[in-house]
């Protein structure tokens, strides 16, 4: 994916290699710079959902009739995934504006700025999941098919985050309201996603809301992979996938167009 490449008279694979090198280097920068001067460093990725899990896991069961199996683990999968999503989106949305000094300096492909933020969060997410496998192995819910379900969900998730981040970060350069809008939406979005509840607790007549929310299938796939809860039904999976594809294509197109003139608005 080459967005806003300069027209050098060099072969395509050279440009692609440079893009990958630059992205790797920017991702590395994000990872090293984020937790500098902190004592717990990377562990914060783990501590946040852990605290949320303990609080929600204690309070929420008072309000639901049918209990979700392995509820603490269920919560943790959702919270970890949600934090990856919301952290990536809220940070990359403002990223072009925040990195204006880079934009004004040189003509590199602009998309490395938001995508490097996403990849650094992805790295943390995967490491945190690696640690999380220990309690999962204890409850013995993993099967061979977990791998497919997990990576299917992961591919959908990363695609969606890249698409929506490109879209919002590009628009935020001209319309700074976008950033505030995204922050506000994230609060609502959390409750519109099956993180602390499961979709089976939602009345059928309202299920269209979750069909519009791509995170529904993604979370169901993750939850299925790790603790064997229900898979998303085919309607849900199809409509969620189509929305992800549409937003991602739209995001790439908007970013490609807007990135030519980022400098004019910064």
């Amino acid at each position, binding site marked *: 994916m080459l967005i806003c490449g300069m*027209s*050098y008279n060099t072969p395509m694979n050279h440009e692609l*290699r440079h893009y990958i090198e630059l992205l790797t280097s920017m991702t590395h920068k994000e990872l*090293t710079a984020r937790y500098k001067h902190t004592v717990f460093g990377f562990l914060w990725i783990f501590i946040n959902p852990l605290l949320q899990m303990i609080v929600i896991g204690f309070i929420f069961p008072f309000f639901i009739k049918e209990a979700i199996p392995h509820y603490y683990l269920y919560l943790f999968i959702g919270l970890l995934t949600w934090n990856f999503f919301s952290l990536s989106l809220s940070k990359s949305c403002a990223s072009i504006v925040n990195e204006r*000094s880079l*934009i004004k300096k040189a*003509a590199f492909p602009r998309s490395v700025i938001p995508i490097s933020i996403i990849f650094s969060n992805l790295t943390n997410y995967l490491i945190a999941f690696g640690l999380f496998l220990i309690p999962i192995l204890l409850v013995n819910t993993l099967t061979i098919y977990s791998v497919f379900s997990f990576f299917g969900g992961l591919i959908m998730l990363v695609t969606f985050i890249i698409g929506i981040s490109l879209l919002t970060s590009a628009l935020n350069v001209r319309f700074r309201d*976008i950033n505030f809008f995204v922050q506000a939406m994230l609060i609502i979005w959390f409750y519109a996603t099956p993180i602390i509840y499961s979709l089976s607790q939602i009345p059928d007549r309202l299920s269209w809301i979750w069909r519009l929310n791509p995170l529904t299938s993604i979370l169901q796939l993750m939850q299925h992979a790790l603790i064997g809860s229900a898979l998303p039904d085919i309607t849900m999976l199809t409509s969620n996938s189509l929305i992800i594809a549409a937003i991602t294509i739209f995001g790439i197109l908007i970013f490609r167009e807007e990135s*030519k003139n980022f400098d004019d608005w910064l």
Partner: protein
Amino acid sequence: MKQPAAIAIQLTDIRKKYQIHHEKPTLVEKFIKDHNETFWALKKLTLTVHKGEKIGIIGRNGSGKTTLLKIMAGITAPTSGRVQTYGRVVSLIDLEAGFHADLTGYQNIYLNGMLLGMSRREIEAKIKDIIAFADLKQFIDAPLFTYSSGMALRLGFAVAVHAEPDILLLDENLSAGDANFRIKARRKLQEFFREEKTIIVVTHYLDFIAETCDRIIHIKNGAVVRDGGLEILSQYDPDWKRPQKK
């Protein structure tokens, strides 16, 4: 085997429109009162730069010089027209920009070099030269926030000149660091001027242009008004006298 007429930059019918925003526009402003205050910074500008030319661009404030430089650097795109550049363009504008305060000088060289278009292998091959040129000594392993502004500037200059630019864009105020470093920077630039590199300088400092450039382009209201040799300098500013060669 150099071809004397090879083109380095070809600009065709470049126009650049800016929207004048007194404040950052909001969504509401955009849709409710669609105010179209625009300003054409460049108007149908066509320019051919050949390989190895040393060009000085002159013009009053607001004539479009900086916009032209940004378009040649690929930092912004023209509203209409065609930009073709052949070779690596490096601008010495905003040298201290693009460093990350929490990363070490060493890590920042990699990051900055890649942003300028260098590959990892190229940087690895040149990192010793870059560190030596920037003269940072033990600070190379310290995070950038511990650097003085002069040190950051030196590092920025060192990375940019080691990026092996085919086309070099210079802005005025190229006063990097202390007297010692200025001499070193000047020597490095003179080296570039002697080589076959294409150099484009934007400045109000006519003496510098007279000393270094062989082609002068005078820009006024976003268009080329004069294009030629050093005689343009005295037409541009009748009070200006060509300095005597030492």
